[in-house]
């Protein structure tokens, strides 16, 4: 697995038995820690475990990525958010980019089990960023890989691949697209699917605190209306989302995040180098 991405298997029987595709948990890594949302990538009700796949970005994600087998996480709350809409739509195209690949896994599974023809398009910077390949392949009728550097599959972004695919297969317009990944990627996918009127669902990642609708930190604008990402989402109709606002709000704490991260790195430098 990619060095910057770590999967944690957490024992939480209640959440494991409840989790549905598209839902997330809020995690606190230490007593002084932030509350951060993480998607439930896989859940195993029988074993009582959930899988959280985390991209190392700032302090909290780094701290989580540095955990060892047997360690505890201070708090895990969930499952939160409205589950993905799963139905037999016909042909469903599911697109995951970067760490956004992880949350597509339960959706791909559920869409396949609901009887859809599933086209998975997975994108990463390079081949080492491709995660959950086996599971995705198993539940997909078509599996396409895109890498930024062309080290595997299509060279370029998932949106570029999608555009090409739609042109080459004019008769096989998907009935629905689900896109999860960086904001720019989701926006690019929506730009591709917009003209053809293909319904496109995106999973938004606004900054959250409680994850239960209490604070409004996670405000997003959809169809000109303010919605709370944590309780009204995280999935929304991508053609109605104000991605500019989402991007802007994701940068609110840039300066503070830098301070936190530098402080963390100082303390953990030796550990990080190993």
């Amino acid at each position, binding site marked *: 697995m990619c060095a910057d991405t770590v999967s944690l298997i957490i024992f939480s029987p209640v959440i494991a038995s*409840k989790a549905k595709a598209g839902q997330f948990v809020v995690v606190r890594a230490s007593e*002084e820690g932030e509350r951060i949302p993480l998607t439930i990538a896989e859940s195993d009700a029988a074993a009582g475990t959930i899988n959280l796949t985390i991209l190392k970005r700032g302090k909290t994600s780094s701290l989580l990525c540095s955990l060892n087998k047997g360690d505890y996480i201070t708090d895990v709350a969930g499952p939160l958010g409205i589950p993905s809409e799963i139905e037999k739509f016909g042909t469903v195209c599911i697109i995951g980019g970067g760490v956004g690949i992880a949350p597509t896994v339960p959706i791909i599974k559920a869409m396949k089990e609901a009887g859809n023809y599933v086209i998975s398009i997975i994108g990463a910077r390079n081949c080492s960023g491709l995660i959950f390949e086996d599971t995705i392949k198993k539940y997909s009728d078509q599996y396409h890989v895109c890498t930024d550097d062309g080290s595997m599959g299509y060279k370029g972004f998932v949106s570029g691949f999608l555009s090409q695919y739609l042109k080459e297969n004019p008769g096989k317009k998907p009935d629905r697209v689900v896109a999860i990944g960086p904001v720019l990627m989701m926006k690019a996918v929506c730009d591709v699917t917009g003209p053809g009127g293909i319904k496109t669902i995106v999973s938004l990642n606004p900054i959250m*605190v409680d994850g239960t609708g209490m604070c409004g930190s996670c405000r997003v604008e959809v169809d000109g209306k303010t919605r709370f990402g944590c309780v009204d989402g995280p999935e929304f109709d991508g053609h109605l989302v104000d991605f500019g606002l989402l991007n802007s709000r994701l940068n609110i704490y840039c300066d503070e995040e830098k301070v936190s991260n530098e402080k963390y790195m100082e303390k953990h430098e030796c550990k990080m180098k190993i």
Partner: protein
Amino acid sequence: MQNENLKPARKKIPRNKIAEQQPASRIKNFSEVELGFTTEQALLESERCLMCKKPKCTDGCPVEIDIKGFIELIKEKRFSEALEKIREKNTMPGICGRVCPQEDQCEKTCILGIKNEPVAIGKLERFLADYGIKNSKNNSQGDTGLKNNNSKKIKAAVIGAGPAGLTCAGELAKMGYAVTLFEALHKEGGVLVYGIPEFRLPKSIVEGEVEYVKSLGVEIKLNSIVGKTYTIDEILESGYSSIFIATGAGLPYFLGIPGENLNGVYSANEYLTRVNLMKGYLFPAWDTPVKKASIVSVIGGGNVALDSARTAKRLGAEKVYLIYRRSEVEMPGRIEEIKHAREEGIEMVFLTNPVEIKGENGWIKKITCIRMELGEPDESGRRRPVKIPGSEYDIDTGIAVIAIGQGANPVLTQTSPDIGLNKWGNIIADDIGKTNKKGVFAGGDIVTGAATVILAMGAGKVAARAMDNYMKTGVW
């Protein structure tokens, strides 16, 4: 009503003033503003009480504390017993003594208050609670010894660990039920921990009250969001005979004006949660950040707005505006908090309402406000603010905090459609907390809308009795 109880010829003692941190220094820290009565002050203050034959003070207290009774015990320096007297009716005196709007409750009806300043009932209550903590070995909190797990067979559930839920859980545990308290957040206390700031209610006091409830044998399940982690029906099916819902009024309202989603615009809930629950004022030692600016504008006029404004000051703002659409007399905040806010240099901008928030590069820069005048009284009896056309002007600001009220959070009720709600989404419950769903009771802010700590506690207590009755008789 005439003051027939008033005894003549008493030595006139002025109401004792509580020691406070001075404004210039307290705006630089988050420590408690009020320092509490000394023993001498408490004794002197107790002397002021007229020991009325028909004490009106108790009528003003929502949980009917025997105020005259506990003051009499203070006079006799029997502090532990005085504390016990309060605890008969109120298990959280350390909290109520600090945050009750006494001027509208017990002290409003105090007979001494007719001609004089009322007895400082709240401050005396706080004194006793603090005394109890200092001397915890010989007070009831330390040695309740009520952990008789063996006799606990009937299970009861409480949802939400705010003042309503904690009180109800404590009462049920004392009656011998096996109580599980489900709380969505990672810490107990509700608004007491995420909303009311440290400088007004130290979190150690709340922790003390939580410990007391735990010592009664209540099992607390944190990080458990009912409606998501569990549903009401699942809880009932898993062997709980009765449920008390006390999920509060946690949904923040926004103004619905342009620019409200700009960076730097907070709901009071988010602002206060970041600072209090997540300890944002200790960033970066604690991880959760909160934005700071030299000019902060808070919209609203209640306790929540005052708490936000005073928090902004302590986070280093040079100028803090409190923008309120009515005038000072209509402000719902506690008089003491308004006074404290003024002393701390909060600038009150009355009869003014924001109409738009303007930004640059995604960040808030100005609030466009319109001046208001007071028109005819509305349903609440207060004069309705009316816009003065053409009076718009801009206020420069780096951060805005919207503190115009909270509604009912629908996370729980969405998954229990069979529980009756009113048009605002509040659960409908009768005066003993009964909802329309068998076995399910509710109380506190989720029923009344945003109210007070003591009313929430009162509701928890009343419901506990009703639940006991229901669980014993099965009669709904």
